[in-house]
């Protein structure tokens, strides 16, 4: 990015999900993780959900990892479900650390290892929670071996992570056809293909296999329309990247799909051990016969908002 980037930016995000069922669904429960989290550099000015049909019950709670979850319960027959989440989010430029300014990666690993009687402060203890295998992340020697090339002895942690991110970007092909939600990370490694979620899971597997704490971040990314083309509604998607715990700095984000460190164009919804913890929508239905949902995400900077939506189709949520 160049210096022309302003220190504060505002985005409007519209995230539509539509299910159409073959047969009526008698009962349905949905967990929604669609509210962007409050962060030092991120503030959600406004957020709302439009849901059709109206759920019998709607609640919210904060999960064990600090993400806001909204729950919906439908108890009447319906053959379609539509959920629109809209947010106005404000981002400030992050205080990105100088990569070389981080402790040697082995020191970080050692800091989080247990020694008889060694306690951990809250931040490090939280980091310890992201050291191990999870549903989609494996800890295996082959992942450590792959990452070893990027982590020379004594190399600063963030230098190593950055190199690993770039190598994944170079060596892996973005290919939505190659994988689905259930593709194991070992297969992603074997074929070196996948989407952002796969790259994130793979990078997490590498880092955790080295003994480094790393978590999965779910969010949105501002995309740029092709040169000369206008921004389109629904052309974006949800995005995923990783964050690494760096003592002295806290959690630092890396986006292996784009080989960059997220700053003013990444909007964070929440995080977890992997996709399973922060899936934007997760549900159980009785009856039905489910189709893949149609998902349409639109991220638009504040100054393009009216150009994009015009006045005819104004989203329900106005700038705060």
């Amino acid at each position, binding site marked *: 990015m160049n210096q022309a980037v302003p220190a504060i930016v505002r985005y409007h995000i519209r995230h539509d999900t539509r299910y159409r069922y073959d047969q009526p669904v008698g009962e349905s429960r949905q*967990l929604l993780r669609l509210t962007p989290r409050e962060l030092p550099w991120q503030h959600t000015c406004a957020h709302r959900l439009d849901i059709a049909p109206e759920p019998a019950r709607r609640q919210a709670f904060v999960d*064990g990892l600090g993400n806001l979850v909204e729950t919906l319960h439908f*108890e009447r027959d319906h053959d379609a479900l539509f959920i629109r989440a809209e947010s106005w989010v404000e981002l400030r430029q992050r205080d990105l650390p100088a990569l070389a300014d981080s402790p040697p990666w082995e020191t970080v690993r050692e800091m989080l290892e247990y020694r008889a009687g*060694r*306690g951990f402060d809250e931040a490090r*203890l939280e980091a*310890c929670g992201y050291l191990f295998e999870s549903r989609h992340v494996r800890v295996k020697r082959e992942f450590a071996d792959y990452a070893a090339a990027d982590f020379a002895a004594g190399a600063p942690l963030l230098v190593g992570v950055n190199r690993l991110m770039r190598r994944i970007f170079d060596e892996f092909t973005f290919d939505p056809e190659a994988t689905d939600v259930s593709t194991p990370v070992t297969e992603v490694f074997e074929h070196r293909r996948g989407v952002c979620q796969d790259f994130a899971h793979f990078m997490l597997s590498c880092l955790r296999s080295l003994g480094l704490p790393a978590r999965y971040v779910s969010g949105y990314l501002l995309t740029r329309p092709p040169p000369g083309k206008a921004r389109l509604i629904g052309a974006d998607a949800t995005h995923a990247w990783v964050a690494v715990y760096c003592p002295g700095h806290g959690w630092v984000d890396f986006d292996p799909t784009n080989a960059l460190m997220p700053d003013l164009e990444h909007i964070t919804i929440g995080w977890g051990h992997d996709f*399973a913890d922060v899936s934007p929508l997760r549900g159980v239905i009785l009856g039905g016969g489910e189709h893949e949902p149609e998902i349409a995400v639109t991220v638009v900077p504040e100054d393009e908002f009216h150009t994009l939506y015009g006045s005819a189709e104004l989203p329900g949520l106005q700038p705060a």
Partner: protein
Amino acid sequence: MPPGLIASYPHAADRYDEMLAAPGQPRPHWQPFAERLARFPESILGHRADFVRGAIEADGVTYNVYTDPKGTKRPWELDMLPLIVGSEEWEELGSAVAQRARLLNAILADLYGARSLLTEGLLPPALVFGQHGYKWPCQGVLPPAGIWLHSYAVDLARAPDGKWWAIADRTQGPSGAGYALQNRIIVSRTFPDAFRELHVQPLASFFRAIQDSLARLAPHDGEAPLAVLLTPGPYNETYFEHAFLARYLGFPLVEGQDLTVRDDTVYLKTLRGLRRVHAILRRLDDDFCDPLELRADSALGIPGLMGAIRAGRVLMANQLGSGVLESAALLGFLPAICERLLGETLLMPSVATWWCGEEPALEYVLEHLDDLVIKPAFSSMRMEAVFGHELKGDSRRRMIERIVAQPHAYVGQEWVRLSQAPVWNRKLMPRSVGMRVFAAATPDGYTVMPGALGRVAPRAGMEVISMQRGGLSKDTWVRAEAPVVRTSLLKRRLGVIDLVCGGADIPSRVGENLFWMGRYAERCEASARLLRAALVRVSSSDPETELRLSGLLDAARRSGVLPPDEDGKEDPRPLEEALTAALVDADQPGSVAANLRALAYAAGHVKERLSSDNWHALNHLEQLLSRPVATVDQALSALDQVMLSCISLAGFAFDDMTRDEGWRFLILGRRIERLYGLSTLIMRPLAEGVRERERMFEWLLEAANSIVTYRARYRRVPELLPLAHLLVFDGSNPHSVAFQVEALQNELARTARDLGHPYPSLMIDPLARRLADFDLTRFEAEDCELAVRTLRTLLAEAEDAAGNLSEEVHRRFFIHTVRPMHLRRVA
């Protein structure tokens, strides 16, 4: 031989013997039992061992070794000789186990709350966050009364110095207490005099404590608390125990699909509608409990359960996430944690354990491999324990490599030479033993079951005790100082609450399975009877065979006992072979064996609602067709046995079972099935001309189970009018169409009244009227064939009515599309 019995029992110098203090010399608390044993002639002991085996078989006590849908049920193995523990020793053990339960509960509270054990360095984060059993969705969730661990078990072993050591903790959904109770019921009857004389402490009070505590601790908002036992289902390895315990505790046995969550409240889908559940004693692993927040691919769970738990609206015993403590790696950290959390010294030592995740421990383990057992640090690893001294050459090198590569995944544990106790194998043989001891949370702290599941290594010289590998079990007798007062849970005085709860909590699924149990029991008997009628008419030497079988094979095909002809081609198999297959081939739909399997399946799902006599008959039926059937004679005798067992089942159904709502569905199933089967059968001869028809009457009467009545009444060859009267219109014949219709009217009316549904009048009353109005004199008239046609139409209607009623019952009672309005009314 008596004196030799004890004398010839080998005493091992290097280990503790439970029975003997020195060769030939029993320990004081064993003395009375050993003396009695020595007085018994060998033949009597043999008989008692047979009694134990027989009781296990008759009660159908099983332990599934594989989760194979076809069911690899293996009989529970119980040694008839009890393990005896003195009262003083037990007192010490009991308080140590109670303290341990208290400690583990405090650890759970900390790990899902403040996590001070981790911030203070008393427990490595790897052993918590690295455990599959640590459930992130449970972080910060406070259970009712602050109790995570309601039901706890610990495996104990005794070292050569006579001290008991804890070797493993069971904190998720410990199994074995029900088997211990079953063992007690059998062994106390095997040695009734010794049992009395030794003042053995009773187990019933422990189970009563579970009942009372769940009721008192559950969030109930002033309602009469309802507790259920949640099982993964009949394919689970310890399903027998789930059914047994549910019956003993008086809790409905439920599967995930029986429960539903609305407004953060858990409900049981019963025949009367939804009833709130206040406490869940679970045998379902936490991963499977809620597909919404835990494992998404679980079909066994209850969507939304986690929400109800978070809202504090239901007590989970145990709380989700409690399985995190089942790792051997924790043992070494417990003494310091006990000091920190309870301010007490840990009363019972754990077996010495080194977690390789700490460098000094890793070094120790590699240095002392021969004296250690290597175990996984994470319970999800599914690795068997490995004895260091058994590792040689390559396998030793590989193991060391694995440990060094991932030290935090391994644990070295001191190899404890287990104590030994005698088992009966035509003489007294020493085997390694251990105990699983149980504790339950009560409002006043933990109570420990005064007894245990005695666990015995499967072979002599074997050190590993595992039920999965075919271990034996023992009853454990804890002696009391003074004679004990015996109470049984089944006879305790009931309170008003019990009256309110009783009977009304029949899950819809149970109603459905009882209904199908009724249908299949009837179908088994009917198909056996039809097949028998065919088999007795088959004789290769007799040229009249074909004549006598006329229509019978066709009827068998129509009712599904024989497979339908493919493309009009006849079955190429010799007739006897086809008929035998229709008996024994369970893969052939409609065969007697297939019907039996379906019966067993339905009955297996309602096990806890059936009396032990019912179980015996069902077990017998299941065993019947496992024997080979090669000849017609063998087939006939197997069929007779099937019919006899079916008749016993019918007898229990009508005479022995409480006439609650569940029972009514069993009877509805039987009546609907018989109405259907009879109508189909009687229609067959009526389709033929006069001569052909009359040839079929004899087998028809046999298959319809009315031949004896007919002969008694008419003493002549069967004719149309009396036959039609007996099989269709005679309301006094329990095997007639009219009888089924009248019975169905009565049962449906009662069910409708009890459960508040409309009586399906249109589906049955017109049929009843037409049966009553049928003018039998029409058979004497000139247009007799016209009457036959009318009768056929009537029977076709009856057949339809049976099908429609079956669907109606399903629609009304078993499909739950309960609306919120309805829900608030019943809740």
